[in-house]
């Protein structure tokens, strides 16, 4: 492991944000003073601004999902730290629609408090505001964890589906209840063979013995609940799938899978993970309706991946298929344009 090329963490975050805006001028506008990125364009029918945010170090989330069809704004915090309430408040005021603004928040204490303070301020200004809390990480699903399950990769699915729903003109309360229902139908689990590099020390955030895999890591270097002996990828993926399917409700729903790289995992490996996952689901007679593979929610340079399953329905799939124009959502996954012709085998 080597230290980062830029060791001033705050300078890195600010510079990357400015660079992101330079790279995607047709998609986003960047306010360097207030520290948020907003979409340049939104669907005419959208009545509610969608806003998300959280610590940096998880790129492309969240700024990579700002654009027509998904988020109206994203507020990045410092590395692995919540954004300030002022960023959220100002971004919310900037993107609120006629029916207010919806905050999509990952379940961490700092994020909850800072989004909560911003919501109180918006309320005082007469701007309607509601929240969807994403808490998909099964590894933190325990009676002893008072804060509840952590929010991880499902956040992106929630953002995409709510984005399409917002474009169809849904109001704030409808979007908030759709979002809560969606979050309740998503579960994730993550594994890692090596920790991310700590920006503070330039060393691995924790040590993993060579013959072990950490089962149930968080996206900020939260240690896993158990260490497993390394086993063939198919066995590991089967173990993860079993754990997810045990708790996913409704139990027999068609599935959407997100195989997500945590920062330093190759595409080769991620596609192999999906293949193993599909095999497990096929064997179990489960319908895998859609699959996404890639780096969506990373943990700096952690060597590992997460699997998210969403128990879907027809409406959810239609919303997932609607096109979105952002830096990181795959346009190729969107529904084909009218008049296209299937290539025949």
């Amino acid at each position, binding site marked *: 492991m080597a230290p980062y090329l830029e060791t001033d963490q705050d300078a890195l975050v600010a510079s990357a944000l400015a660079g992101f805006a330079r790279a995607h001028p047709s998609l986003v506008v960047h306010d360097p003073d207030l520290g948020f990125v907003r979409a340049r364009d939104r669907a005419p029918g959208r009545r509610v601004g969608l806003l998300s945010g959280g610590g940096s170090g998880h790129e492309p989330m969240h700024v990579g999902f700002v654009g027509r069809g998904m988020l109206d704004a994203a507020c990045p915090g410092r590395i692995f730290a919540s954004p300030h309430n*002022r960023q959220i408040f100002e971004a919310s005021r900037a993107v609120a629609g006629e029916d207010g603004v919806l905050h999509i928040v990952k379940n961490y204490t700092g994020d*909850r408090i800072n989004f909560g*303070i911003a919501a*109180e*301020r918006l309320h005082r200004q007469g701007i309607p505001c509601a929240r969807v809390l994403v808490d998909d990480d099964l590894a933190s699903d325990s009676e002893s964890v008072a804060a509840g399950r952590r929010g991880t990769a499902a956040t992106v699915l929630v953002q995409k589906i709510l984005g399409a729903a917002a474009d169809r003109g849904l109001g704030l309360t409808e979007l908030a209840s759709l979002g809560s229902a969606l979050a309740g139908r998503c579960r994730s689990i993550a594994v890692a063979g090596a920790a991310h590099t700590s920006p503070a020390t330039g060393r691995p955030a924790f040590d993993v013995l060579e013959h072990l895999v950490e089962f149930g890591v968080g996206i900020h270097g939260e240690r896993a609940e158990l260490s497993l002996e390394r086993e063939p990828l198919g066995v590991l993926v089967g173990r993860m799938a079993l754990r997810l399917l045990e708790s996913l409700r409704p139990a027999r729903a068609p599935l959407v899978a997100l195989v997500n790289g945590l920062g330093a995992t190759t595409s080769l490996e991620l596609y192999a993970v999906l293949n193993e996952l599909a095999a497990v689901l096929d064997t179990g007679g489960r319908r895998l309706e859609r699959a996404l593979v890639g780096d969506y929610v990373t943990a700096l340079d952690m060597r590992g991946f997460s699997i998210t399953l969403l128990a879907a329905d027809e409406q959810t799939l239609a919303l997932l298929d609607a096109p979105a124009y952002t830096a990181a959502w795959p346009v190729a996954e969107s529904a084909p344009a009218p008049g296209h012709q299937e290539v025949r085998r």
Partner: protein
Amino acid sequence: MTGTKAFDGVFTAGWMRRFAEAVAATEEELTRFDQAAGDGDFGVNLLTGVRCALAALDRLPPGRQAAAVPLAAAAGAFLDEVGGTSGPLFGLVLQELAAAAGTGPLTGPALARGVTAALEAVQRVGEARPGDKTLVDALHPAALALRGCAPGARPDDCLAMAAAAAAAGVRRTRALRARRGRASYLGERASGVPDPGAVGIALLFASAGGVPRTLDVVLLDDTAPTEAPAGGPDPLWGPEPAPAGP
């Protein structure tokens, strides 16, 4: 009406300035409490807040103004310019006070409404309950005391009652074990130390009628008997303040 002050912008601006002086005078003690229980930045954050609030007060146009104006200016400074979470939570408290005053003077009923709304906002945001060893443990008794004030009571008397109730709440936090925030990870290590956020709230109310230069006004109970009561240590929860007047 001798001695009954009109609680207009002159009073609230003076209150905020006195609070700033009090925080500057006690910052080291606040930091010491937070080092025992949290990450040690509370004193500095509160000091940043009051300094930014003073700068915001200095930017206000000269002349008489409504009570809400200096409160809202201070609220904005705490909310926008202080890092961490406790500083902005103080901003929420001041924002609710400003909202309750509206365009009129800060009356006793407005104080009761404002502090109650502040308590509700802080609890919505931080999800803390009384007894969790947070600033709620000072804000909650202050709200109860203010709601117990007679509608016609003088606002300075109401604030004095709120200050006494908040200080009593702070003293009770010494025996509490934190259940929220960073302090919750320390368990028994932080017991015996009052919650710094609650101390800050008590200091805010104590600053309404003067400038506390030490935390004695919050931490020492001058109404208590000099000898320990026969029943042993103080009960965790004292009786709620009795309503004043009919």
